[in-house]
């Protein structure tokens, strides 16, 4: 182990111990009381009351911007030192892109569409991977929202109790990307087969199967989004519950490593691979 790695490890352990001790001191409420507000979200309402189209979820917006900023900063730092003989950062970025491009190439033989599909799926992969990672294992500011009997929400910021809120832990984000992939795949279908061929595709193998085909197409974005949402939210709640029980002292690094790094990266990979599969199944020739 190099000297730099040793220093980083020591800093991590010190921060972790301090956070654990703080939480052991501060988290004195019984679990049922403290974990009551897990599923509540911080919602800001503009304009008319109870109008769903005037609502935003500030935590999702803030964290999305943070994720985008992280990706742009990394991309700029790679681009600044772009060389024929790559350094470590550039090699990492290149091997990541190459890995996904091989998958795209094997499922979309046509070069013209392969590049478009690659760009879309790589963007999704980067965004989801980074958001899962920051939501997975870094303790940060979280929002505790309690809803009173009359429906008013009291917002309270809590330090180092939960991890940062991952944007993918909000179904709105996932559903947006899933619907985006769905629309793009239908666009590819119309472009390659023509409107007539696209409509004919719903009547295969027999005209009797029309409703089944329509439901099958519409179920794709839903299952696509729900898979990611369930994994990230479920993992987050599980980690929070267990780490509350042990007051952040023993288990969380392993749980974070599993749910944040392993499961998070796999879900990002699955999301982008399924996006490739959905798009390539609609491209002909």
């Amino acid at each position, binding site marked *: 182990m190099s000297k730099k790695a040793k220093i980083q490890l020591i800093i991590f352990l010190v921060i972790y111990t301090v956070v654990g001790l703080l939480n052991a001191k501060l988290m004195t409420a019984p679990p049922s009381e403290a974990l009551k507000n*897990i*599923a509540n979200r911080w919602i800001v309402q503009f304009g008319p009351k109870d109008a769903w189209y005037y609502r935003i979820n500030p935590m999702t917006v803030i964290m999305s911007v943070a994720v985008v900023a992280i990706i742009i900063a990394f991309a700029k730092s790679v681009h600044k030192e772009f060389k024929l003989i790559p350094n470590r950062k550039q090699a990492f970025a290149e091997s990541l892109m190459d890995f996904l491009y091989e998958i795209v190439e094997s499922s979309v033989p046509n070069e013209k569409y392969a590049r478009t599909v690659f760009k879309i799926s790589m963007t999704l992969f980067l965004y989801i991977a980074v958001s899962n990672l920051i939501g997975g294992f870094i303790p940060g500011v979280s929002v505790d929202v309690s809803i009173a009997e009359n429906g008013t929400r009291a917002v309270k910021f809590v330090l180092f109790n939960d991890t940062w809120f991952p944007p993918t832990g909000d179904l709105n984000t996932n559903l947006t990307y899933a619907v985006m992939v769905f629309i793009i795949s239908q666009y590819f279908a119309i472009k390659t087969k023509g409107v007539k061929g696209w409509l004919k595709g719903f009547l295969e193998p027999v005209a009797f199967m029309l409703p089944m085909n329509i439901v099958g197409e519409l179920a794709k974005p839903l299952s696509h989004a729900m898979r990611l949402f*369930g994994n990230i939210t479920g993992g987050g709640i599980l980690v929070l519950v267990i780490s509350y029980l042990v007051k952040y002292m023993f288990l969380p690094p392993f749980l974070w490593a599993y749910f944040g790094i392993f499961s998070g990266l*796999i879900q990002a*990979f699955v999301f982008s691979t*399924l996006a490739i599969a959905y798009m390539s199944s609609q491209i002909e020739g």
Partner: protein
Amino acid sequence: MEFSAELAKAIMVAGKAIGAGLAMGIGAIGPGVGEGSIGAHAMDAIARQPELTNVITTRMILADAIAETTGIYSLVIAFLILFAL
């Protein structure tokens, strides 16, 4: 009057707990069987062609994640029962 209100609340809590437990427990059967089958066949494939290990592992993880979907649905439903109902 007060007793019946408390009883109603207790029955509701019991129903929530039982419902969430059943949703998660029964919902985990399908993914368990499915993922076991995927893993078994991936092992077979690797034993037959060890040079394709990397490709098979990637595909296996992808198939695992898809087989897991129904389990994740039941997890979401369990959370809905516990926190949103």
